[in-house]
Structures are given as C-alpha cells and as structure tokens.
C-alpha cells in the first residue's frame, strides 16, 4: 500500500474496507451471509425496474396460476401477474416503509431518551411514565389504531409503525446515555463550561450510539414484519402497489391451494430479510460487547 499518497488517505480507506471483507467472512461467516442477503434484497429493491422480468401490475388472463418456471421464475397469481416481479417491486415498498419507520422512530426516540437521561429529575420521571404507558401497548395494537386513525396510505403505515417503535428506542437510548453520563470526560466537558447542547451532541450521543444502533438494526426487521402484518390484515399499503403483506393476503385469501407459490415466495423474501437483519443486529451487538470488553479489561486489571 506504500505507493499510495500518504497525505491522501481516501484510496487507502477503500483498500482497507475491501481488504476487510475476506477476514470478516472468515471470522464472522454469519455476519457476512446476513450482509450479503440484505445487500441482495436492497439492490433488488433499488433496481426493481431492471431486475423485474414483467410489469408487476399488468394482468394477463392467459397466464393465470402458472407454476414457477423459466418464463415466470416464481409463477403467476390469479390475475396472471408475474410473482417474481411483484416480489421485487414489493421489496421496494416493504423495505422503504421499514426503513422510513425505523428512521422516524429513531430520531425522536434517541433525542427524547437522551434528553430525558441528561435532564434527570422531574422531567425524566414524567417522560419515563409516559413511555411506560406507551410500552404497555402491544406493538401491533398501537400500530393498528394509528393506521386506522391516519387512514390508508404508505406514509401513514410508516408513521404508525414508527410511533409504535419510538418508545422502545427512547427507553434504550436513555439507559445507554445514563450509563455514560457520569464518565470523566462528560464531567470534564461540563467543567470547562461546555453547553448542554454540546455535551449531548458531541459527547453523550456519539458514545451511547453504538448499542442503540445494534438494537435499531434489529428493529428494521420488526418494522418490515409490522408492515407485512398491517398490509396482511388490510390496513397497510393500499393497492395497486404490491407489498409483501398484501401479496400474502391475496395469496392466502384467493388462490391458496391453486397457487401455493403466491404465498410461499413473498413470505420467503420477507423471512430472508428479517432473518438477516436479526442476525446482523446480533452480530453487531456481539462485536460491540467484545470491543467494550477489550476496552474495559486493562482498566479493571489495575
């Protein structure tokens, strides 16, 4: 790597990143597998127009209920629509809703959790009691009443799921900030007169973020499942957009026995996505734990 300009670290960073792939694959095969699967699903979603072999919305009665084959990889449904293309386009809707929901849950969740921990005292108590109440709601029940109230639209589904996830993230972020609030560098920052905003933004958030991030990765899977569940029961993404949940519902309701592939493939795509995101979350948490153990070890031996 010596022929790279030492003052321009960019290419070295790229090389280091690419060079890190193989060791990662050997050391953590599950993480590599999960990342590969997620990347596949995400790129299929992004490149849906290129990857899809048919128009996901076009009906062709002559092609009704065809089993999987060379022409239709995943077969066709009761309207003669190509299921492979619908799964690929459904990935776009389902992943987008999941991603939007997690971001919309994480931003207020982390801010409220961090502020609550930072303020402490009465404001903290009040915020935590409100979060207690929201945590008493089963996730799907909260998402369901939100979906009813907001009406059927893609963005409403994402908001409904975000509101159901936000209290959990807030609780996590609070615990995480509380655990480092008394650390020396925070005291030091306060001693030199740093503003509250600066302490939270520059010290508390960056240092409490990793464990929260690991959980949030897992929540992505939960959000996608929630979207599927809402769409399955008829409160999710409205037609004509194919989402995995709606495809499962149509498959199960209309041609369950006649076309099992209409139920199997959307669910398979969903499971691969959720399983990889859960695995990745686990691996990230594991890795962070180990990193922290290494960081703490020398100190505790003194």
């Amino acid at each position, binding site marked *: 790597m010596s022929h790279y300009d030492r003052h321009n670290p960019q290419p070295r960073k790229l090389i280091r990143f690419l060079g890190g792939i193989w060791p990662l694959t050997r050391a953590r095969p599950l993480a590599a597998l999960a990342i590969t699967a997620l990347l596949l699903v995400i790129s299929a979603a992004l490149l849906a127009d290129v990857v899809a072999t048919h128009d996901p919305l076009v009906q062709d009665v002559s092609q009704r209920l065809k089993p999987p084959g060379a022409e239709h990889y995943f077969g066709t449904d009761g309207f003669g629509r190509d299921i492979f293309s619908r799964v690929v386009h459904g990935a776009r809707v389902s992943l987008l809703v999941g991603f939007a929901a997690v971001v919309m849950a994480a931003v207020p969740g982390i801010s409220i959790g961090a502020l609550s921990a930072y303020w402490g005292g009465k404001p903290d108590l009040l915020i935590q009691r409100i979060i207690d109440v929201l945590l008493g709601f089963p996730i799907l029940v909260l998402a369901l009443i939100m979906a009813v109230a907001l009406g059927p639209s893609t963005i409403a589904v994402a908001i409904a799921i975000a509101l159901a996830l936000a209290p959990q993230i807030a609780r996590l972020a609070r615990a995480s900030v509380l655990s480092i609030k008394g650390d020396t560098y925070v005291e030091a920052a306060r001693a030199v007169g740093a503003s509250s905003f600066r302490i939270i933004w520059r010290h508390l958030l960056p240092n409490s973020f990793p464990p929260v991030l690991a959980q949030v990765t897992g929540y992505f899977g939960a959000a996608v499942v929630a979207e599927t569940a809402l769409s399955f029961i*008829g409160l999710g993404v409205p037609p004509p957009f194919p989402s995995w949940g709606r495809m499962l519902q149509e498959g199960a309701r209309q041609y369950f026995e006649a076309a099992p592939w209409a139920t199997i493939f959307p669910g398979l795509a969903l499971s691969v996505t959720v*399983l990889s995101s859960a695995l990745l979350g686990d691996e990230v948490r594991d890795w962070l734990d180990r990193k922290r153990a290494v960081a703490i070890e020398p100190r505790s031996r003194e």
Partner: protein
Amino acid sequence: MAGQGVEAALKLNEMYRYIAWRLALIVPTVLAASTVIFLVMRVLPGDITLVISGDVAVNPEVRETLREELGLNDSLHIQYGRWLWSMVNGEFGGRSLESQEAIGSMIGRQLPVTLLLTGYTILLSIVVSVPLGLLAATWKDRWPDRLVRVATLGGLALPHLWIALLVLLGLLLLFRWSPPIIYDAPWTDPWSHLQVMAWPTLILAWEYSSHLVRVTRSSALESFNQAYVTTARSKGLPGYVVVLRHVLPNALIPSVTMVGLQIGMLISGALILETIFGLPGIGRGLVRAAISRDYPVIQTLATLLVVLSLVVNLVVDMLYRVIDPRVSYSVDAGH
C-alpha cells in the same frame, strides 16, 4: 422459633401491601393508556361520520343525526368521561356500529378465546423452554446446544404470519386436512377445541419459548460459574442434582421475567394468528373492527388488550417474587 414466625408474618404483610400498591399503580396506567387510545381515535381522523359513511355520499342531515347518536357534538372531555363510565358500568363503550351487538357481550364471547390461546402458549413455552435451556447450557457448543440455538433463531426471526400460512398450506396439500372452521370451547367439545387451537398455540409458542430458552440458557451458563455451583460440585453431588437444585432455581428467575417482557409480542402475534386461523378472539375482533372502522369497538378492545398485557406483567412480577425470596417487597423498590 417464635421470632421466625413473626418475621414470616411481617413478610406476608409486606407482600399484601406490595400487591395492593401494584394494583393501585395499574389504575393510572390504564387511564393514561385509554386516554391515548381515545385521543388517537377521536382527534386524528377528523370527522368520524365521514369515515364511517366511507365513500358513499351522505346528505348532511343523516350525518348530523349520526353525530348526535354517537354523542360527537359534546366536548371531548365529556365524550371521554362517558366512555370511561361505560367501561365501569358494564356497557363497555356501547354497541358495535357494524353489527349493533353490545360490546359487553362481544367481549364475553371473545375474551375466553384469547385468554386460552395466550395461556396455552405461555404454559407450553415455560414447560418446553426450561429443559431446553438447561440442555443447551449443559452441552454448550455441542450438538444439542447448536440445535437449540438454530431453532430459537428461527423462532425469533421467522415471521409467524408466514409460518402459519405455510403450516395451513402444508396440512392442506399433504394431508388434505384443515382445522375446523367453527370454534368450540373446551367445555363443549374438547377434541374440536384442540384441533382449532393446537397449531396457533404451537406457532406462537415457538417464538415465545425462543425468548425464554435463550435467557434460560445464558443465565444457566452464568450460574455454572458461580461459587455455590462449584461448592455443590466439590461436595461430590451428582451432575443432575447440581443442575436441578442449584442451577435451575437461579435460571428460572430471568426466564419468568422474560414472560412479562415479551407479552406484548405475544398479544401482537395472537392478533395475527387469530385472524389467520379464524379464532373468534379479541385480536380478530379488533382487526375486523379496524377494517370496518367500528370506532367504539376498536377503542374498547384495544384498551382491553393493553389491560391484559398489564395484568400479565403484574402476575409475572408476583410470581417472580415468590420464586426469588431475595427480592424485597418495599414499596419504593417496586418500580
């Protein structure tokens, strides 16, 4: 000896006080939760009558009568007060907009189904997960452990929605069998009840017990390293006695806590599985009401599910204190 008796009586007294305190604490939580539900249902959607009448153009007079009938012309706090009072006097929010059935009788019909489904799931999960967790911990990194870990990963990450559809599909295509369409209570037709409930219970328990197995395994592993287990071993006690007498009681505690922590997941799962398997429980009732925008029913059933999850948590908390005598009943430490 007399001193011990007094101490036990004091402890019992403390326990009752603690239970009373926890019960009292549930009231404000339920009130707050019902306020959230009420506000979400009343404030967000704008004019309910428009939502109820849907796409059909209705003349303003009809809508006005509907508003009057639903009491929507009163101010919000009066509406909320009226709804709360109806929860106390047994009307449970009045009647369904769709079927005109009294919500009270609806709950009477649906609640047992949901209670049985979640009850079966919790019991089955505990019965299965404690031995599996201990097995995995005892044979750590050997094949029983690997097997258990793969099975729990599947249980945690595979969406039960899809598993349920696959099970139904498999039973239909391979055995030409599907569960009975009509639900029977266990006291009228136990065999038919078992046929209806078996699969949803198994699918829910797979996910639920996966949480429990993981916790049991890791806390059993932890207690293997504790001094009391080493002591028990060095006394020459056989391995199974060490596991049953010393590891098990300590591994049980976090597993019981997990039952409470995951109850929300279980209720969400019951909602979906009741819908797929056509079980006439609260979950399916809520889903149906949500689709037909049956506001009074949604409000009451959603509140009921929140209460259910709070009550299970309370019971778990009590159990936890029975199993672990070290936990104090002091009112301040209670929450």
